[in-house]
């Protein structure tokens, strides 16, 4: 899971575009802080801090993809399913800022772009898809697994699509933009499948032990599977 179109370094997107998207990202993060405050009030700092530490650890866990290839989670869908879109986006934002300033991963000039793609777009898309899919598939174990799996794919692809939009506005003018778009989106569908398998298994594990901690379930238990009709 190399995060190909994510963690944009210096010089990929020009400065005016970076600044405009940084302003959008700042507004979005501001809205997240206000909404998260309303949900958690004075518990926000310790809980969001610990959740961020968890996302950090989750991103450091390497899992196998195929023989010899391993990857790591991006975490947007995981944050959305467990923490909800507002706190989730806030936590991923903090992770991105820490990575840019403390670990030199991702450019300082592109911090706004990275926050917008990986924290805001990816978490909100994931949360929207989970909410819709839980209605479609039902609130049972299978429904949750399917919903989180699909949401992870959508969130990774949406983040890479957001990058492609920024690239079309402020990147190099590429002759075969269509070919590049197909290549990037295609790669990210594959990345999303890997992300989906791990995220779905992790969220299900939490839902079985502490359903009240899974934000996407709104604090209620999973429905028990319908009892088998007994035939006399």
């Amino acid at each position, binding site marked *: 899971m190399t995060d190909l179109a994510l963690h944009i*370094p210096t010089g*990929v997107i020009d400065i005016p575009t970076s600044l405009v998207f940084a302003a959008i990202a700042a507004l979005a993060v501001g809205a997240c802080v206000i909404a998260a405050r309303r949900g958690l*009030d004075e518990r*926000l700092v310790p809980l969001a801090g610990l959740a961020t530490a*968890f996302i950090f650890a989750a991103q450091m866990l390497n899992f196998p993809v195929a023989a010899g290839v391993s990857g790591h989670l991006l975490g947007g869908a995981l944050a959305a399913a467990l923490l909800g879109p507002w706190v989730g986006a*806030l936590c991923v934002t903090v992770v991105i800022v820490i990575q840019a*300033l*403390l670990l030199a991963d991702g450019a300082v*000039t592109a911090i706004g772009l990275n926050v917008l793609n990986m924290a805001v777009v990816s978490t909100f898309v994931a949360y929207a898809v989970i909410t819709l899919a839980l209605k479609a598939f039902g609130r049972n174990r299978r429904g949750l697994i399917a919903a989180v799996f699909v949401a992870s794919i959508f969130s990774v692809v949406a983040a890479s699509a957001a990058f492609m939009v920024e690239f079309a506005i402020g990147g190099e003018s590429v002759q075969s933009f269509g070919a590049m778009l197909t290549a990037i989106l295609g790669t990210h569908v594959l990345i999303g499948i890997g992300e989906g398998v791990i995220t779905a298994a992790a969220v299900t594990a939490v839902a079985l032990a502490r359903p009240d901690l899974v934000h996407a379930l709104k604090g209620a238990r999973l429905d028990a599977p319908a009892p088998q009709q007994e035939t006399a």
Partner: protein
Amino acid sequence: MNGAEGLFRPGDSPLHRLAPQTKVVALVVFSFAVAATDREAVWAFGAYAAILVALFWLARIPAGWIMVRSLVETPFLLLALAFPFLVGGATVEAGPLDLSIDGLWAGWNLFAKATLGVWAALLLAATTPVAALLAGLARLRCPDILLQITAFAVRYAHLTIAEVTQMRLARLARCDDPRFLWQAGALARSLGTVFIRSFERGERIWQAMAARGYTGRLPLDVGPAAASARQWTAAMGAPALAAGIAMWTAVAM
């Protein structure tokens, strides 16, 4: 990589002693100067690299360490290598390949700017402890709530990372050796466990804080020290030089 300590390398160089807020501003200005430079002004990128190498030497940071840490940009170098084939326009022959001239410049542009950006960020990360960096950001009027969350995250990342490592050892000790994605179930479930533990720890910490009178704001106003004019001058030397070079290329081109 240890997320909790960042990449800080203890030391006592002039760069370590600079006030953190001046270093953050210097990094931002330097990065924007690099990003704004015309891609065909190759000498300018050489000059930026020379400035950074001189500063690395001043801060006593070994070259091998920088090279290893620069690997974070590898995925994007693949994109840089693809540009000569993706971009149209006049081409140049290189053996069997037809490479776009524009594409070669685009690839070089990405490679040079990304590398310089990573190096500049490494310089800050290597010479500034996490706590000092947060204090510097507070001094630059970053939103308080984000800094508090960051401080908690950095403080407790030690624990969560240690838990993940511990569970990995436990799995290895029981001969769990997944090779394919569909075998990674135990790994994902351990992630779920770490989440529950983190969240419960967060609740306990909040209760402990509430018991000590916490109402949503940290009672202590730990104001980080202001930087003197001399510190600002020292820190802004390199970025000012870089900005001058960037302006020069913009005018000369």
